[in-house]
């Protein structure tokens, strides 16, 4: 599974863009997070690995900006496991292990669209790096495919 971040501008928010892409391409997407108002919005989608290219280009044709959200990075040297971040996480990606350490589940984390935990870390051990571009992802994907061949 791969995650992509859609950004919709003011004129796109009133269009059923996600439904159109799903119906026209017969693809499966899961909406992990969405922040939308009349001025625009951001949606995080989880999509199947082999459908990433189709979905990314379909959304781009509709006028959406598509990027790959960068996941949260935790500096384990700084973190002393206070736990401030745990209850803040809306998708329960942060948990306390048996030895009372803090564990980040990168699979569950929705990344930089959320960022709710970042400014709550008293030792600033949680960082979110800005979005990388999908161009990189395309390259990575295609190079993977080459290798598979």
């Amino acid at each position, binding site marked *: 599974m791969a995650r992509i971040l859609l950004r919709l501008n003011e004129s796109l928010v009133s269009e059923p863009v996600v439904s159109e892409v799903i119906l026209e391409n017969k693809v499966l997407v899961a909406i992990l997070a969405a922040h939308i108002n009349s001025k625009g919005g951001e949606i995080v989608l989880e999509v199947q690995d082999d459908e990433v290219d189709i979905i990314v280009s379909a959304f781009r044709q509709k006028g959406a900006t598509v990027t790959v959200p960068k996941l949260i990075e935790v500096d384990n040297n700084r973190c*002393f*496991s*206070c*736990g*401030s971040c745990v209850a803040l996480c809306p998708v329960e990606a942060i948990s306390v292990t048996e030895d009372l350490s803090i564990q980040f589940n990168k699979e569950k984390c929705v990344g930089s669209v959320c960022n*709710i935990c970042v400014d709550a870390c*008293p030792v600033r051990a949680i960082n979110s790096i800005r979005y990388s571009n999908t161009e990189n992802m395309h390259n990575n994907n295609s190079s993977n495919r080459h290798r598979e061949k």
Partner: protein
Amino acid sequence: MSKRDQKTRTIEEINQKIIKGDAQVLTAEEMKKLVESSGVEVAFKEVDVVTTGTFGAMCSSGAVINLGHSDPPIKIQRAWLNDVEVCHPGAAVDLFIGATNSCEKKPFEYGGGHVIQELVAGNEVELRATAYGSDCYPRAAVKTTITKDDLNQFYLLNFRNCYQRYSCAINCSDETIYTYMNKLLPRMRNATFSGAGELNPLMNDPNYETIGFGTKIFLGGGQGYIIGEGTQHSPQNLNGTLMVKGDAKKMSPEFLQGAAFTRYGTSLYIGLGIPIPILNEGLVRKTAIRDTEIFTDVIDYSVMRRDRPKLCQVSYAELKSGAITVNNKRVRVSSLSSLKMAKKVAQTLKNWIDDGQFTLTAPIERLPLDTVFKPMRQTQEIPFVSNVMHPAITCMENEEIRAIAERIVTKSVNHIVVIDSYSKLLGIVTSWDITRAMAEGKKALADIVSRKVITANPDEPLESASKRMAQHNISALPVVDSEHKVLGIVTSEDVSKLLGR
């Protein structure tokens, strides 16, 4: 009586065992398990010392440093370490680094706590100081770098540490708030708590039988002493605190960490552990206390008053489980202090005693059991929303825009509060909304009502309501009670009238 049946033991006896390497030391966690499985009598026979620990943000912390004299000498008036102003210099070259003092260039992000951590870690810190100059101290300014090795004295000196327990913080308002209890999401979407519960030193000796003036403790990875009760010590409701001091040159940056709380400020996390000598069976029972027996209040931190509403009581067992129930709602809760580090403090102290490096001291005086934490005497009152609010001009949702326009004119107001038949807030319309609706030919009020309304609480200081108006660029706040029933309205005019008085 044979030694085997002895019902008490002394600190001297325990110290002799420690020196010989015979003392039985358990961490508080291990002690509780032993008492549960084998009972009080067995635990008394087997255990000499129980080690406790806590690792939390302790804002009333700081360090005293003595720089030595410059040439020519200076009597410092103002001083900064890594751009953090250090407070109240004593004579000449003594400084106090307050953990909560913020760096002028990076306010809220870097502060006194970080400076203390850097010094403890052996890093160089930049000193700037200014003075008025006198015949005996002629120098007016100095700039240099220092490390802990350059200092004559470097003492951690904390006015109030080791809170016996602390309240659990929650936010019932509609907006995220940033507090010393960290980030609190709106509408009770999270809660935070602090303290180690059953591992906390004072909780394991709640009437301070063995913990007092002169007790030697684990402090910041080194050794320190209790030098009295902490400020705001409130023993009668299990909110005891300690004042402590220790040689910071021998401390470790692992157990002393600078911290930053967004939009609150900086602080210092400190590892503090106290060995409790098991002198009698009563102390066995005390050190057997469990999280299920330690309760604290859940407090609504969105109320900007000294006495904030208590919503319910929860145990530390519930708090540590990750979720509590408040007003029938499940709320996820997380710790601010590190329980993992608290355990490490207790374990490290245990290792020190096992190795014969750390012996116990008997307190030379007990901590007071009767002090009361009084509020501030205030000779000037500040205005609250309830002092200036006035009745709101209201309307129902099904009214026509024209009728509301008339009301705006006759009542000479700019804001009409839309309510339902139970007086509950539905929305707000302004004279501007009405003007625009008339221009656009709209008739139905429902089309133009602003439904996301920023409100005020009658008990909040007028200053905070006024700040909120400025923040949202609005000129009035409906005043509502906890059930969203409209009590009145407060406008920016009310605020300016009061200021002009």
